[in-house]
């Protein structure tokens, strides 16, 4: 019977060969594994502010259309909290008024983002077209789980944090406006002086300190609910159980994390 080991093999036994392979593999990968573990450790102890660990949270917002009175205090508070330019084209959050007419037409307006509310009490019905439904819809960045804006950024200046908030690195942004184009919700704008992209941060600077975003803090009717998506006992989870939830433009598969209750199908 012929020995399976060929004659001119350098005499190395199979066992030794395998051993060597294993050792060298281990030796080769140790640095990588070590450094990866170190990075992971760094991440998990990444604590901003006081005792804030982003890996323990996942944020979202609930908005109940049936409660919104259209006072626009949220839009106002947002500008004051975040020093958003005063000019009437720059908003991180705003309120829209929907009016749906009998003829099927839908009319949406948001005078100055509704910062001063909606004052005109009666509407002039256009060509005697009767309004059959009317309501307010607060809008804000959806902090998509699958954000198109982050995907298009050429320099990595916009990103999603481990706790699910989409942010912009103002110092690193080159102002190319790709993200503004990519956002299907119109939630971004170019800062007129800094020339960089800006958007809602879920008031990240407040959230890490245990406060809620300014718009949620200020809302007089608790239309806006801020909270954890992944914890059972959170006001947001309760809200999502209690109501039938809708999101804006679900077909785009952006997986928004702003959840609307009593959302009319006319809302886009």
């Amino acid at each position: 019977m012929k020995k399976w080991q060929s004659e001119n093999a350098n005499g190395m036994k199979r066992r030794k060969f395998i051993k060597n392979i294993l050792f060298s593999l281990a030796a080769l990968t140790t640095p990588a594994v070590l450094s990866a573990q170190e990075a992971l450790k760094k991440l998990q102890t990444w604590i901003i502010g006081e005792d804030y660990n982003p890996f323990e949270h996942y944020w979202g917002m609930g908005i109940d259309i049936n409660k919104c009175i259209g006072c626009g205090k949220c839009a106002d508070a947002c500008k004051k909290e975040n020093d958003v330019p005063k000019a009437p084209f720059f908003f991180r959050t705003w309120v829209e008024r929907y009016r749906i007419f009998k003829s099927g037409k839908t009319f949406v307006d948001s005078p100055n983002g509704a910062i001063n509310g909606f004052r005109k009490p009666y509407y002039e019905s256009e060509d005697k077209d009767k309004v059959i439904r009317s309501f307010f819809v607060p809008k804000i960045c959806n902090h998509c789980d699958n954000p198109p804006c982050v995907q298009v950024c050429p320099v990595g200046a916009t990103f999603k944090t481990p706790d699910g908030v989409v942010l912009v690195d103002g110092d690193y942004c080159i102002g190319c406006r790709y993200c503004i184009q990519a956002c299907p919700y119109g939630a971004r704008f170019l800062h007129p002086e800094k020339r960089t992209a800006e958007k809602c941060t879920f008031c990240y600077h407040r959230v890490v300190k245990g406060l809620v975003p300014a718009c949620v803090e200020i809302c007089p009717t608790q239309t806006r609910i801020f909270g954890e998506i992944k914890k059972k006992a959170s006001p947001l989870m309760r809200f999502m159980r209690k109501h039938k939830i809708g999101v804006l433009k679900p077909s785009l598969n952006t997986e928004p994390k702003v959840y609307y209750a009593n959302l009319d199908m006319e809302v886009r």
Partner: protein
Amino acid sequence: MKFKFNPDDLKSLVKKSFSSDNINKRRQSMKFFWKNLPEQIRRLSVVAVILFALPLVVRQLLIPTDFGKYGHYRASALDEIVSQEIHYAGRELCNECHDDVVEVKYNGYHKTLTCEVCHGPAFAHTEDDAIELEAPRKRSYCPTCHEYLPSRPSGFPQIISARHNSRKACIKCHDPHDPKPPETPRECKACHAEISYTKAVSKHVDIPCTRCHQTPEEHKIRPREVLPSKPHNREFCGSCHALDAESSEDIPRIDLFEHERRYNCWQCHYPHLPEAN
């Protein structure tokens, strides 16, 4: 000539080239090699090396050191964002020094309002009470929330400010921290403005709300806890509209057993604005 590879040659070559006395020789030969290259190749190779190295250097310079630490972004961006100044203090901080006002507001109609919705961002004030806050005493302030707008949800108290005690400031009659109406609202219109104004132009204008909704007086004081009744069957509408109903002659009649039996009346007719083609 055919090149033949012999592993032993390679072994001896490696051995030779790493032995120290050979290093000098190798340097010599490298120099020789370089010198003997054609002029243009030498120049081109320098350019090639620069072209290759330049992007690497530029990349090194442009990408911040902390890029990619947590993800595809600059880690210190987070610190910058988080260090942004806070303007709104939140509702807990006021308790310390204004517990009297907080106490008054706690059970009032304005309990869901945060102090700062009326007094403005107050974080600076909580740090240093010399920084004064505004109090919105003007009559034009409250209607931002309370002016009648058809788009507002049913149940929210609304007024038409031009008609509502138009001479005086709102806070003359309503304590802003506990805005009890001086007397219970007489009409449903106070909180169901849109329904009332709709009904006012409908065929049902003369039917009082309470004919269809038995409303305990408590509903006007604690509206969400005590709810009025709502009609729940066809016979209710039939009490006026059925062929044999004992009601005014002018009321249009339908045969309760023939007319669209499968549905409740208000699945087709909005009771506050009934229409029949």
